Structure formats: structure tokens, C-alpha cells
């Protein structure tokens, strides 16, 4: 699973949760908050992505992500362990 694949999964879940967002406008350097996600949205997006990736991570790990790139990196690190 490449970082590109992970980014695509996160993008799909962003679209699922934020519905009217233009998936082509999502920049990996943006934070979910920048895209208009509230606190529940952010947990939903991260969790749905973990489910798609078959990952179970302690929530405290996700707290370190400042933007989508960080989230991709965290997921990538755990998948390839």
C-alpha cells in the first residue's frame, strides 16, 4: 500500500463525510479543519479510513496529525510495520 493509495482512501472518506467538497481540490498539505470538518467529522474521516485500511490505532496517535500528509504518514507507518 503506497502513500498515494492511502491519500486516495482518505479523500474518499472526506467526500463521504463532507459531501459537497470537490475531491480534486483537496491538497495533502491542508488540515481537515481547513476543509470545513468539525471535530466529529475529523474523527469520522480518520476512523472510516482506518476501517478501510484494516487498522486499529490508539486515538492518541492521531492527535499528532497536523494535516492530511501527517495522517497519511501515520497510517503508512502502521500498515508497513
Amino acid at each position, binding site marked *: 500500500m503506497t502513500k498515494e493509495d492511502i491519500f486516495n482512501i482518505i479523500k474518499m472518506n472526506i467526500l*463521504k*463525510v463532507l*459531501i459537497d467538497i470537490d475531491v480534486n481540490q483537496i491538497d495533502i498539505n491542508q488540515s481537515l479543519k481547513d476543509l470545513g470538518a468539525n471535530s*466529529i467529522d475529523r474523527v*469520522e474521516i480518520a*476512523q472510516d479510513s482506518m*476501517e478501510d485500511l484494516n487498522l*486499529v490505532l490508539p486515538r492518541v496517535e492521531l492527535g499528532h496529525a497536523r494535516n492530511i500528509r501527517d495522517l497519511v504518514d501515520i497510517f503508512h507507518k502502521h500498515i508497513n510495520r
Partner: protein
Amino acid sequence: MGKVVITGAGVINSIGHNVGEFTEALRLGKSGVHTLRTIPTDNASVKIGAEIKDFSYIDYLDKLQRLCKDLYTRSRKILNNSNLSTQISSCAAIQAYLDADLINSNLDNDSIGIIVAGNNISQKYIIDNYKKYLKEPEYINPKYAISFLDTNIIGAISETLKIRGIGYTVGGASASGNLGIYNAYQLVKTGAVKACMCVGALADFSELEMKALSILGAMSCHRFNDHPEKASRPFDKNHEGFVFGQGSGCVILESLGSALNRNALIKGEIISVAAGLDGNHLANPCAEGEAKVMRSVLQDAGIMPKDVDYINAHGTSSPLGDVTELRAMRNVFQDSMASIHVNSTKSMIGHCVYSAGVIELITTLIQMNEGFCHPNINLDDPIDSYVNFTGKEALAEVKINYAISNSFGFGGINSSILVKRY
């Protein structure tokens, strides 16, 4: 304290996705009962129900785009990834709000209230999430913490429609709808609000409830699985239990003063509402308790039994329930029974549980204003041949001035509403 009128209605059920479609279906005597598709029936004896078919809340909201972009955007976000009852009940509420033309009124948002009728509304949603929890607890959607609550529907509707008056849920088992209307009526009558939405929540039953109710012997599950449209047969000698119905209805109750002030179209007047208990926690009905609430609405209004033209019966197709309700009616109306039209909407749409009272009030108003009585579609052989039941075809050219709508719930909960043509 002034009069309380109805200025808006919205409905989504197994035979109509709005009031117009529902009206035509009532006239034609359409049945919404089919083999169940959305509730698992592997372990069940109950295989049939009146499910809503081919309704997408997303498609419904899409149609609002032209009308009100704000409402469309807000409601899409709120209902996304929510549960079935919140989605459908919200759509019924939006329909009623638009029907009452509240969107163009300058009624203060603080003077509009919301009552959601029903409790333990989202059972299937809860059970489906529990199954997910058993597989992997960490994947439980954080939104579940909010949306499992009955009050999620209040939050969704109040945010969608920007309503800021009084709001809460009212529970009464199968009598929830009427009790919700009872509360909305009091709030408007006392001036606590100028208008009040009463939303009958869609009952999201799971396979657990269906199984327990069939074990209790309350549901039809023997003779009609191959002909589901015949299963809901209130007051017929072959009745064998109720048929589950999916549906949500919403009525807007408003003070007459407010309605006249903004030139709202008035669909009827709520004259009186009565509620009472039997002192019984079980499911069996009680003729005295049912008679008491019917008598109360007449006495509170100062009208005689002979003045009533029509009764929308609770009529669930339960052998004991049907017999008891007729006994209660005879007790109150006696010789006047011969001139009162009686039907049960449940013959077509099944038992919508929490929203039954609201949907059946809407049915009463439709018949009142359109001048017809819908048929009792499966009434082949009535248990009482002296009651003036509408037959298997609709009765045209009927004049309904005063009408009663009954709802009775498990736990000895009884309610009755008296409505008058405006």
C-alpha cells in the same frame, strides 16, 4: 386561550411519498404491505410489512435546491450518515413546513416548537451498531453517541429549519402520535408557542422487536405471508395481528390568530384531545379506558355523540384490540354508531407505531377536505355487521364535520383526538 388549527402536513409511508400521492392511494385503496426487504427475516415468523419503497431522502432534498439553496445545503449535511428515522422524519417535517408556507412567513423562530412523537425510535440503528461493536469496537462512528438518541430528530429538524422554540420528544408506544399532538396542542393553546410541529417518528424496528412481538402473538405471521396485501385486516373475522408499517408524518399546529394573521391555509381545527391510562403494564386493551378518552373529547368540546360523522379507528387487525375498540365505541356512541363512518388506515399502511397517530390525523383531514372515506380494503367479513364500516371501495361524497381519531398503546395508554372541518 384561542383555537388551534392545522396549517401544514407532510407524510412519507408505504403508499405515498407526499400528501398528494398518499391522498390518491387512499382513494384507490392501495396496499403498501409486501414481503420485508430491509429487516432480516431468517429467524422470524414475521415475513411481511409495509415498508417505504423507492424513496431516497437525497433525491427529495435535491428537489429543494431551486426552492431554497440554504435549506438544501443544511439538510444534506445534517442528514448525511444519520439514521433512517432521522432522515425520513426530517423529510416529512420539511414537507409540512413548506406546506404551511412557514418558509415565507415572518413568524419568529423562537415562537415555533417541535414535538417528536415516539421513544426507542432507532432500534435497528442501535442493533446494527452493536453488531459492528462486537466485530471491532474502535470502528464505532462517533456520531452514534448523538444519533442513537430519540432527540437526534429534534436537533436535526431544528437546525434544518432554524426552529428555536420549545422542543422535546413525547413517548406513548402506539399512542405516541396522538400524545405528541396532545402536547403540541397544549403548547399552542397556552401561547407557549405560536406554531408547533408534531413529527411522528418513523419506527426503526429491528429483527429483535419483530421476533419478540411475533412470540407475544401480536403480529400477523401465519396465514398471509403468500398474500401480504391481505394481512392487515382490521375488524375482519380473519384478523390475526398487526402488520408493521414504516412511515413518518408531520402536522403543524398553529394558533388561529397566527394562521389568520399570515393568511395561512387552514386544513382543520383540533377541538379537543384526551389521554388516559388503564393502570396496566401489559399489552391487552381495555374497553373502559378507550371509551373514557372518546367520551372526554366529546365532553370537553360540548358536543354530542350523534354530532360525530367519522371515526378513524386505531384498528390494528389484532383480534382482541379490534373487538375491544368496537365495544368502547358502542359504549360511547350507542345508537349513533349507525350514522358514523368507521375505517382503519392500518388496513393499507400497516401499523406505523409512533407515527400512526400523526399519519392517521392527516388521513382524517384529507378525507374531511376531499369529501370521501377511504376503504377498509380487507374487510371481507366484519366482526360486527352493525357498525357503519366503509366497504372495500372508497365512499365518495361524504360530508365529515366532526371526526375522531383513536390511538391506544401497550401499557394501557389511551388517546383520542376530536377534529372539526374549518
